[in-house]
């Protein structure tokens, strides 16, 4: 059974296997049982990329965007905490 998954992504059945696919270009990101986020193209930006009032997050958060690795459609955007490696 195929059905929407989220904006620009769908769950698609093909020959008994289920995939998460980009609805823009048809690219199969991964099997439905896998984490689709890990299969995206990921870029991070300063928080103010999302607007000037995000400046209070500078240094503590990054603005992470996930794209379809083939057609580049934006799939997700969120602030993620900066991990201190020390």
């Amino acid at each position, binding site marked *: 059974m195929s059905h929407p998954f989220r904006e620009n992504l769908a769950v698609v059945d093909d020959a008994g296997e289920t995939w998460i696919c980009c609805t823009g270009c048809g690219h199969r990101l991964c099997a439905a049982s896998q984490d689709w986020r890990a299969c995206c*193209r990921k870029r991070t930006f300063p928080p103010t990329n999302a607007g000037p009032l995000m400046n209070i997050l500078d240094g503590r958060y990054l603005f992470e965007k996930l794209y379809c690795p083939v057609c580049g459609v934006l799939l997700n955007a*969120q602030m993620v905490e900066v991990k201190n490696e020390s």
Partner: protein
Amino acid sequence: MLSGHIDPITFEVLSHRLHQITREMGIALERTGGTVTTTQQHDYNASLYRPDGEIMAAGETYGHHVVCAGFAVRRILERFGAEEIYPDDIFLLNDPYLAAIHNPDVYIISPIHHQNALVGWSATFVHVSDVGAITPGGDSPDATEIFQEGFRIPGIKLVERGKLRKDVFDTITHMTRQPEAVGLDLKCEIAANNVAKARLHDMYRQYGPELMNGVSIEMIRYTEAVLRKRLGEIPDGIWHETLTIEADGPCRLALALRKEGERLIFDFTGTDAQARKGINLPFHGTFGFCFGAILYSIAYDLPKNQGVLKPMEVIAPKGTLVNVQYPAPISMSTTSSGFGVGFLASSVLMQMCATSERWRREIVAPSASHRNCRHSGVNQYHRYSAFINMAHGAMDGNGARIDRDGVDSGGSYMSCPNVEWMELQYPLLYLFRRHATDSTGAGKFRGGVAVESAHTLHDAPEGKIRGVAYGVAGPENSGHGMFGGYPGAPSVITLMEKTRVNELIAANQPPGELTRLGGQERSLPYCNFELKESDVLYMRVAAGGGYGDPLERDPELVRRDVINRIVSADAARQVYGVVLEDRQFELDLAATRQLRAAMRRHEIGDAS
């Protein structure tokens, strides 16, 4: 979906009449309440229950309190037993470890009898102005255990067989800083319960107990049947969400929603241990906030009753932020972990809805709520007030949807008095209360814009008032974006001390921009503070999260937002890739197309 046991027209008439009773209870609360919290801000609940405490009908109010009042009815039944519950008794309960969510939310519960048989209950809560806690008003950031958070009553008869127990009433109000206001609020609850009792008696006389009982059973069965059918049409799956609240360090809430056939399982495993500060939520509160999230997502058009609860299960490990264990503090639970749970539950339900062709149209970008503050102190008429709620929740920007922008300052709950009324009642002077430019979460459809305000002291006899900062603290509050939409700007409370505000006002230069004020700024965590002469308190509430990629937003809509000062011209260019010519804000479509293409290339590098 009706079972066929009851004539459908009779069912519709009676079920709507029951719902109307809860609305009339709410009107009674508003007209007779003792504080603005009840009369203008609508921080109350009014609902009806079956004899065993199952929700029969609920008014247009908080979902979580509808559930918790049902728990309160059961606690009264357990404590007193049917043989000790008489017609015209009225009970009071506010123990958060039994059924309430925090001490100031005082439940008043009234059994409804017909021909001496218990046939149901009515219940209300209002947020009373004081409970004698360590901090005036009840929200107590310094409390380390429940014993510092005010009176805590596990169930008592406030009215016995129609007669107010003055000894009990006086004992309760005597424990508070504002006995008159608390007394009025308790009496407005009694009044609302009396309205329910009178209307239900009319219905029982008109239709008889057999039909009334059958209708209430059928209402619950109908809601459950429709909800289960809807769930059955949505694909199974698991969806996750987290939220970190900052209270003496990060406190993480985690939720996994499993949808299995017609069941919803909310699993909070992985949530952090209960906190030292009173942001902890009791289990029944967690249950109630999940109920509310279902109600507002896929059951908003159904009769609000126990049927919504039947398909759901909540797993909340003991000793965590979502199932606090005695005697940890709890006083700030509703506006911190409570709203946090509401956000988590809404977010996973929205992700679930996205997998359904039918329900994806209903998606709203969820919000993790905001910061707020309350004041207490002596006003310009030399009267003490323990509870001045700034009520900013009424001015949150709402989340964007799949096909439209979020509502600007649409509010997440309650209502907010106007500036003039606040200044008339309290020793406050607003410098501004307005939409906050660039607060909204960008998107193909943007979130609703938030409100920012600044106020200072005015004509305060003591030259200061107290304040308490609470809400969802930390940069993850505010609206979250959906599917490429951006988050709204974080909600903040900033105290600016020893500013030039009075000097500027005296010079007839009211400061619209904070940069002109000078002074020392500090961001307020969960804390008590004082607002003194020449201090300014700045607050910005939650803005709505966006939906979809901002580079896909209609440039004309961005232009309108710039004209309306919702988005700055700089942000129009840098966030939306829209080029406007100076001053007249004429749209340069060719330059916009070029800029957007360049931004995409820059963002995704070689991907395209």
